[in-house]
């Protein structure tokens, strides 16, 4: 079971929901922080990190001794990552998508593989909960390959909870694709609703069952509830604005640990997700 926790915009409480659900479920789960530009799930889960490794993506390196400036490499690269001017060959690592095309077409075997660092992946655990996060190198623009690496490390025997990046672009799709359920976290404000609409649009393209958690559910204009009703989006949990919850959050603590009554609510949230993800009626919720 793979559950991707997403939100149209940042700051809605997506990470709070992902970490608290993981802590409520305990041993059988793993939490994958795929918000690789700003990973912060570790701040709330507080895992013990046991290993951190570098992740690289292959990019070409040109051996100018062998190169005849034939341009076959720059002609095949649709990303403009290689330019041949005169007798010189320039590689723009940050534009390279690691397709390998240039290496295949070079008639002189003048192209070898080197690496560009995408970022790091860390592994750890907390109370039997497995934890993995990705951290994009500062200045690196391509996060989907790193997100895919984090997801590839998932353990199929566990319930996988993914903290997805906010938004609706490629990185989010990389964090939602192939999930069994997408849990959207939103706020009942006009901004929240606007971004939720965009995010729901993206989920529909993927055809994955989804449901909503409304955070700070008693603030704002409440239009999100009417929207959910009209779109047939099940609301699986509401978290009211509560000074105690805000305080717990600001101290970097988990709600389920400070307010035990919430543990059962997060377990219940998981049960609802499980039911929707496995039933066909659930599957129709987000596929219009």
């Amino acid at each position: 079971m793979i559950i991707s926790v997403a939100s149209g915009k940042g700051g809605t409480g997506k990470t709070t929901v992902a970490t608290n659900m993981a802590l409520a479920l305990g041993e059988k789960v793993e939490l994958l922080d795929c918000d690789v530009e700003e990973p912060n799930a570790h701040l709330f889960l507080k895992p013990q990190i046991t290993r951190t490794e570098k992740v690289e993506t292959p990019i070409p390196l040109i051996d100018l001794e062998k190169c005849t400036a034939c341009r076959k490499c720059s002609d095949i690269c649709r990303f403009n990552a290689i330019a041949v001017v005169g007798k010189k060959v320039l590689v723009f690592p940050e534009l390279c998508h690691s397709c390998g095309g240039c290496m295949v077409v070079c008639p002189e075997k003048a192209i070898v593989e080197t690496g560009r660092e995408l970022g790091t992946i860390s592994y750890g655990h907390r109370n039997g909960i497995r934890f993995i996060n990705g951290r994009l190198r500062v200045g690196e623009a391509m996060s989907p390959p790193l997100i895919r690496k984090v997801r590839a490390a998932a353990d199929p025997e566990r319930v996988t909870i993914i903290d997805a990046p906010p938004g609706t672009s490629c990185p989010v799709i990389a964090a939602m694709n192939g999930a069994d359920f997408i849990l959207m976290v939103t706020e009942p404000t006009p901004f929240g609703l606007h971004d939720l609409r965009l995010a729901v649009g993206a989920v529909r393209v993927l055809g994955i069952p989804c449901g909503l958690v409304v955070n700070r559910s008693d603030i704002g204009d409440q239009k999100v509830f009417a929207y959910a009703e009209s779109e047939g989006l099940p609301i699986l949990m509401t978290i009211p604005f509560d000074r105690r919850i805000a305080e717990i959050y600001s101290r970097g603590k988990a709600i389920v640990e400070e307010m035990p009554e919430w543990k059962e609510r997060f377990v219940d949230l998981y049960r609802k997700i499980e039911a929707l993800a496995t039933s066909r009626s659930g599957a129709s919720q987000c596929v219009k």
Partner: protein
Amino acid sequence: MKIAVTSAGTQLESEVDPRFGRARYILIVDPETLAFEALDNSANVSAFQGSGISAATMVSDKGAEVLLTGYCGPKAYLTLDAAGIKVVSDISGTVMDAVNAFKNGKVTYATEANKDSHW
């Protein structure tokens, strides 16, 4: 010698296109005879990344030694530099104005790119 000028149209009277990679046309002009060729840059205009790199390759292939344009990004600049092409940015007015400014020596060569890359 030949110089390259980014242009919104195909004539010497056309306005300079301030962009390089995504310029509509690039005119390759002989400043002495004013003979010129207009290169259609639309293939690069629609490229989703690296348009300046391929525009720079095209300008180099045409044998231009100097580029007159509005803005030139870092990757295009690196490519032009590797090709030995000098860059003059902050150019405006018509292509003819730019050619005249060049002929009168009223231009300053850039030593680095002046626009953050966008892709």
